[in-house]
């Protein structure tokens, strides 16, 4: 099977096939490896590659896979060929949107912007209190506040939409 794996700017086409019990023949660019990959705990894989040992923790989403390796986080996007073809058609439609969601349950202390307002990069948007700490969330890029989904004083759950910037 072939997968498009992206990490940051880099995208690679990686092909994987079985080569024995917990063994995989993997091609990346012009290099082919035989990878010994055992799932040793629920989210943990022990990988031996050319004799070298790696222990990776994987947090697996649908297309997103977070790989923890020696304390470093490698956020990957892994799609198969069908998904890749689909996403090509969608790509042009989106772009430039920032949807701010609540990372955990908390209470909206203050909304610092209003709908229609132009915001700069790194500008404070909203203050959420969680576990007795107030946390200010900022914009990652300039844009215009398209929609505010919450009110001050409202209690939010993790994942709830907060503010949409365009």
């Amino acid at each position, binding site marked *: *099977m072939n*997968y498009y*794996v992206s*990490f940051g700017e*880099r995208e*690679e086409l*990686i092909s*994987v096939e*079985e080569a024995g*019990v*917990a063994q*995989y023949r*993997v091609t*990346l660019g012009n290099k082919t*490896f035989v*990878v010994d*990959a*055992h*799932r040793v*705990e*629920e*989210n*943990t*894989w022990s*990988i031996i*590659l050319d004799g070298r040992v*790696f222990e*990776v*923790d*994987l947090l*697996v989403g649908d297309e997103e*896979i977070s*790989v*923890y*390796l*020696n*304390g*470093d*986080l*490698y956020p*990957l996007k*892994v799609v*198969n060929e069908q998904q890749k073809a689909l996403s090509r058609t969608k790509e042009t439609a989106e772009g430039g949107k920032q949807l701010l969601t609540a*990372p*955990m*349950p908390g209470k909206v202390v203050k909304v610092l912007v209003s709908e229609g307002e132009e915001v700069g990069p790194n500008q404070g948007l909203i203050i959420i*209190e*969680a*576990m*007795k*700490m*107030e*946390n200010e969330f900022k914009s990652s890029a300039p844009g215009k506040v398209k929609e505010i989904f919450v009110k001050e004083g409202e209690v939010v759950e993790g994942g709830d939409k907060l503010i949409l910037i365009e």
Partner: protein
Amino acid sequence: MFSRILVANRGEIAVRVIRACREMGIETVAVYSDVDRHALHVRYADYAYRLGPAPASESYLNMEKIIEVARKSGAQAIHPGYGFLAENAEFAKRLEEEGIKLIGPSSEAMRVMGSKTLARQTVTKAGVPVIPGTLEPLATEEEVVETAREIGYPVMLKAAAGGGGKGMRLVRDESEILSALRMARSEAKSSFGDDSVYIEKYIEKPRHVEIQILADSHGNVVHLFERECSIQRRHQKVIEESPSPFIDDETRKRMGEVAVAAARAVNYENAGTVEFLVDADKNFYFLEMNTRLQVEHPVTEMVTGIDIVKEQIRIAAGEPLSFTQEQVRQVGHAIECRIYAEDPDRNFFPCPGLIERLRTPGGPGVRDDSGVFEGFEIPMHYDPMISKLIVWGKDRAEAIARMKRALSEYVITGVKTTIPFHIRVMNNRHFIEGDFDTNFIDKVFFKEEAERELPEPEVAMLAGAIERFRRELRESLRSKEISGEGIGSLWKYTYRPGFGKKF
């Protein structure tokens, strides 16, 4: 000696105190809120009583209920740990009235040191150097603006009743001061029920270095040298060590003497910590005195061999210190990393939740002070600290190498933790060289991290592709199995009999 002690706390520090009592042959009484019935501190104690619902105000901060449990259970003394009621002078006073011994200082010492302004006035008289600033809370916005001008920017706004970075704001320019004041007051109010704020000179490139002291009821006061606590995020310590890689012997000696003088100024009894800011020229200024056991006390225990909690209990029981200042030695080097249920990749956002999997590091020179177990749900009502990992090495280089090794063995899943963050700090060149101040994490570390090229992108990408391949294979096999084809061929993909049980 006491025969029974009530531990008025939860989490790792309650476990720490219970362990000390158990080793001393003293029975312990645990107290718990509804969400903590399964917690280790309840299970490790000899007796346990419920306090009330989860919110701290109805449980761990409920003085009268705790006193009632102490009475009912026959506890002669109360160890307050840190946080909650540990520095509450009113609680100390109530215990004095009730004739229950608090394992800590007198309510009077607590009252004086608990008010930052009163503390500064008192230690200044004893010859302890303090940071330029106001000694009283400031009432009006005008007063704040005026005082800041006098001291000169940058200045720091601080909650008078505060601690732990809450209600604290750095102001570099007059244009920011009023909004910062409002934020500080609001946090101070919600955290401590008191919005008093004072102001002081902000010291550039400051190090946070503190001295552990022990004082008995016979007038003996000793210090156990310093702890370097400059590695902070959001003004909260996350990594501590002893000795400090920055302090020289002469400064160490003077800081120790000054700390002992500060303790004597309030007739201090029991364990306490005198915190200092140290500038680049090794001038040091009194910050505050913590009138309780400190989170980071284990690093001092590892280098001095002294069990601070056991000493606290002996002191409270009226025993004199069993050693003199001259007998206290700093041997080797110790480092502590605080493991929080926080996401270091999202600004240390708290992540309470269920600990699905837990593997603790082991081997020589490693100590794990934890309050959790696999299957425990970290409640969202309290501090999200999971554990403290402490290592000892014969020197700082060995301690750092050992901490890296131990962190790499530490597995906690189900919640995000600060373990990966600590590994990255241990690998940071500035940290290894001892070249940092309290701004290091926010100002230097994360900038360098953002620029650092990750060393194994290909391995990560291969792992991701294989995981995806295996998942698709499993799904296709499962659908075949459901449709009646290929049953049994699944066995090919389970690698060991009995092993697949949990996964």
